[in-house]
């Protein structure tokens, strides 16, 4: 909660000096009536599910709604666009579920921002009408880890593991107990909890503060230290390298330059650019900094296993953007979302690890965050952007919608754009339409790209 106030303050400080960028508005969909007969006919004709997505939705207590996982139609050319096709109510938890992930074997997982359910597996099946439904939601044993963020499946010496970052780690009341969980990807059992508390390691030794972003290449993993999920004053400015042969942290690298809003840089998401993403690429880590508003590159020499001095590739403070968040990609481009002013920047994948623009920004909405790539039923290439940072408010915040205290970063919407031109084709505002907030989106059949939001 305090972290959010901090973010809010930072955004207000930053955006107060900038004119909001005007974007062409697409009318929020209001059509709800559905011709079920027509739907049924279409179902039998084509696989309509390729335009469907899973979304994590947060109930807004003062609006009388509750948390759920929904399947939604995302084809802007469909009469059902924006319609919730299926809604699975989640149990009452101390914080919203945050991210959805498919494992390499197609199992569905979610991380959660609280203590009661920081990691869960969701069982997706089909009923006799061929409709996807959820028949089980299991909160997993994490040995008491709090505030799950990102998941990555990665093979080390021929063995596959599931890695999860826990920003709150083992004790939310402490300043530096963030952890990385190593799980058996078959049984979901904890293999190891990687912890390196700054207050306990010797001076100059590697440490992990509040791990959020995660990425890996070969036997090297990188996690960020962004912000403490409960203690407002604690903001990180480092990434930590973990040796996957031993699961031990081996190096902590400071990622910081100017502090445009007076706080540490808060590295958030990372991407280890590697040959499986770009053939022949020289590996490097890309890092987005939440409060630095920057994107950094850390070159990596695969032979010597040495990480070089970080280089700043992009400076949002001068470019008029803030809160860079996610790395996503397809076969040709890398996409980075910027919560302020709510855009997605696009880069030539082949030019990585350098950021060479491949086209105009996609103008989404404030809080531009997660995204999916898919095709409409007619074959048009699309990108959908979730425009919402976090839904962590509650009644105590004395706000009628519970979550608008970070209004500048919570637009509560998904916007759908033509992937080639960036043209906005549709918008679904969940607060207006369903009285809920949106936390995450994942294509029903997965995103098809190695990302680690």
């Amino acid at each position, binding site marked *: 909660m305090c972290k959010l106030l901090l973010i809010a303050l930072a955004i207000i400080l930053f955006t107060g000096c900038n004119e909001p960028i005007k974007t062409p508005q697409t009318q929020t969909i209001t059509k709800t009536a559905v011709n079920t007969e027509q739907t049924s006919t279409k179902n*039998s004709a084509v696989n309509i599910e390729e335009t469907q997505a899973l979304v994590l939705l947060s109930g807004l207590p003062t609006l009388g709604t509750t948390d759920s996982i929904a399947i939604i139609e995302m084809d802007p050319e469909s009469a059902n666009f924006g319609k919730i096709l299926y809604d699975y109510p989640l149990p009452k938890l101390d914080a919203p579920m945050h991210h959805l992930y498919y494992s390499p074997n197609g*199992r569905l997982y979610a991380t959660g921002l609280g203590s009661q359910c920081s990691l869960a597996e969701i069982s997706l*099946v*089909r009923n006799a009408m061929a409709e996807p439904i959820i028949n089980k939601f299991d909160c997993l044993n994490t040995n008491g880890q709090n505030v799950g963020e990102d998941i990555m499946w990665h093979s080390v010496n021929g063995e596959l593991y599931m890695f999860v970052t826990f920003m709150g780690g083992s004790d939310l009341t402490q300043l530096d107990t963030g952890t990385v969980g190593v799980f058996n990807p078959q049984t979901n059992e904890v293999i190891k909890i990687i912890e390196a508390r700054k207050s306990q390691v010797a001076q100059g030794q590697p440490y992990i503060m509040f791990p959020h972003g995660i990425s890996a290449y070969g036997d090297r993993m990188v996690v960020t230290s962004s912000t403490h999920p409960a203690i407002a004053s604690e903001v990180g400015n480092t990434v930590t390298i973990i040796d996957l042969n031993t699961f031990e942290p081996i190096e902590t690298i400071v990622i910081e330059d100017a502090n445009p809003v007076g706080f540490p840089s808060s590295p958030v998401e990372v991407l280890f650019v590697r040959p499986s993403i770009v053939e022949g690429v020289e590996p490097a880590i890309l890092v987005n900094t939440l409060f630095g508003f920057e994107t950094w590159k850390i070159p990596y020499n695969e032979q010597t296993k040495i990480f070089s001095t970080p280089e700043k590739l992009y400076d949002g403070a001068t470019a008029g953007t803030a809160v860079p968040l996610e790395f996503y990609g397809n076969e040709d481009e890398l996409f980075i979302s910027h919560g302020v002013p709510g855009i997605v920047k696009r880069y030539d994948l082949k030019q990585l690890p350098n950021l060479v623009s491949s086209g105009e920004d996609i103008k989404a909405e404030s809080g531009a965050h997660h995204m999916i790539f898919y095709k409409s039923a007619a074959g048009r290439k699309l990108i959908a952007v979730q425009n919402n940072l976090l839904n962590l408010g509650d009644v105590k915040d004395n706000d009628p919608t519970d979550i608008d205290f970070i209004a500048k970063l919570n637009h509560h919407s998904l916007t759908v754009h033509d992937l080639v031109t960036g043209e906005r084709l549709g918008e679904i505002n969940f607060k207006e339409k369903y009285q809920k907030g949106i936390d995450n989106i994942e294509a029903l059949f997965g995103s098809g790209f190695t990302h680690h939001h």
Partner: protein
Amino acid sequence: MKSAKVVGVLIPIFIASTIYYINNKKPATHLVEFTAPFVFGRFTVPQNNPLTQESVLLGRRLFYDPLLSSNNQVSCATCHKQPLAFTDGLKTSVGVSGKPLAFNSMSLVNLMWGPKHFFWNGRSPSLEDQAIQPIEHLDEMSRNIEDLLVDLNNDDTYRDLFKRAFGEVSAQGIAKALANFQRMLISSNSRYDQYIRGELTLSSIEEQGRKLFMAHPDTKVILRGGNCIDCHSQFLTGGFSTMFDGFSNNGLDDDQALQAGLFTLTNNEAHRGLFKAPTLRNIAVTAPYMHDGRFTTLEDVLAHYNGGIKRSKTLSPLIIEADNIPKTQKNHISLNLNDDEIIAIIAFLHTLTDKEFLTNPAFSNPFTEENNNG
């Protein structure tokens, strides 16, 4: 007087319409309820043949009844035995004529997913169409449908089952019921299914086989692969739903011996020698293998892909290209797997056996059940 006349006319009309209504009213049916793995993908059921409990019950009885053959000795189950994943263990099946048929009996499993083209050569567009063909085929069951309808109408049990499922005995009802029983042959509890659900861990040799199964070999990055998934991506279900995806020439014959295959359906020379890539579910119990049952064991099958491929004009390019060592001999096509890798792939194929499916009473012979119950 006038009123009495009117009543006299109305009463017979009322009685007649009531009788007509009773005889022709649509039976009250109940949809089957089940869940299936999401990873199987979306399935479709024809709108004119909803998956009702009544049609499945009727279909199961028809499937096991030799009444459907001219000599009253051959049923669908003669060539599709449950313990063999609904195959018959023969090189090619034998029906009422006693002559070996042209094709090896295909396994019946997870048929709701995908297929738009049934049989090895894709000659049938639907399960309903497919269900009738063997009944009428002179070498298979050789049954005259009109005669069969008479016999079914004379059987109280069938008359009742048809009435409940479709209202009356009909050829269309036979096809629909058989199709729906086959749709319910759902298998989702093999060791591999359990692995996918996280309920067990594969042994190291099974896991090695799984990785080889899933990989297309790439010598540039030293990735070894069995190349299986290239043609068998729908290996857990009944096949593909897109056009002729899933039909492939896997190098069984050279140009001189190339059999018609999909060409039978399309008259397209590019389709000569292409046969359906079958499900691999329960493959360990469905020997012999290939459309003509030419391979007795899985070892024979692997040996074929590991050096026995015959080149022809329609041979799959995925097979030509796949090799675990850099290509040196232009005309020699082989995966070049080593013995351990072959053993591993076969070990993985055994994880696809669903013992629960092979013994599920819901799919078994209802006549045996009736006899046992006295």
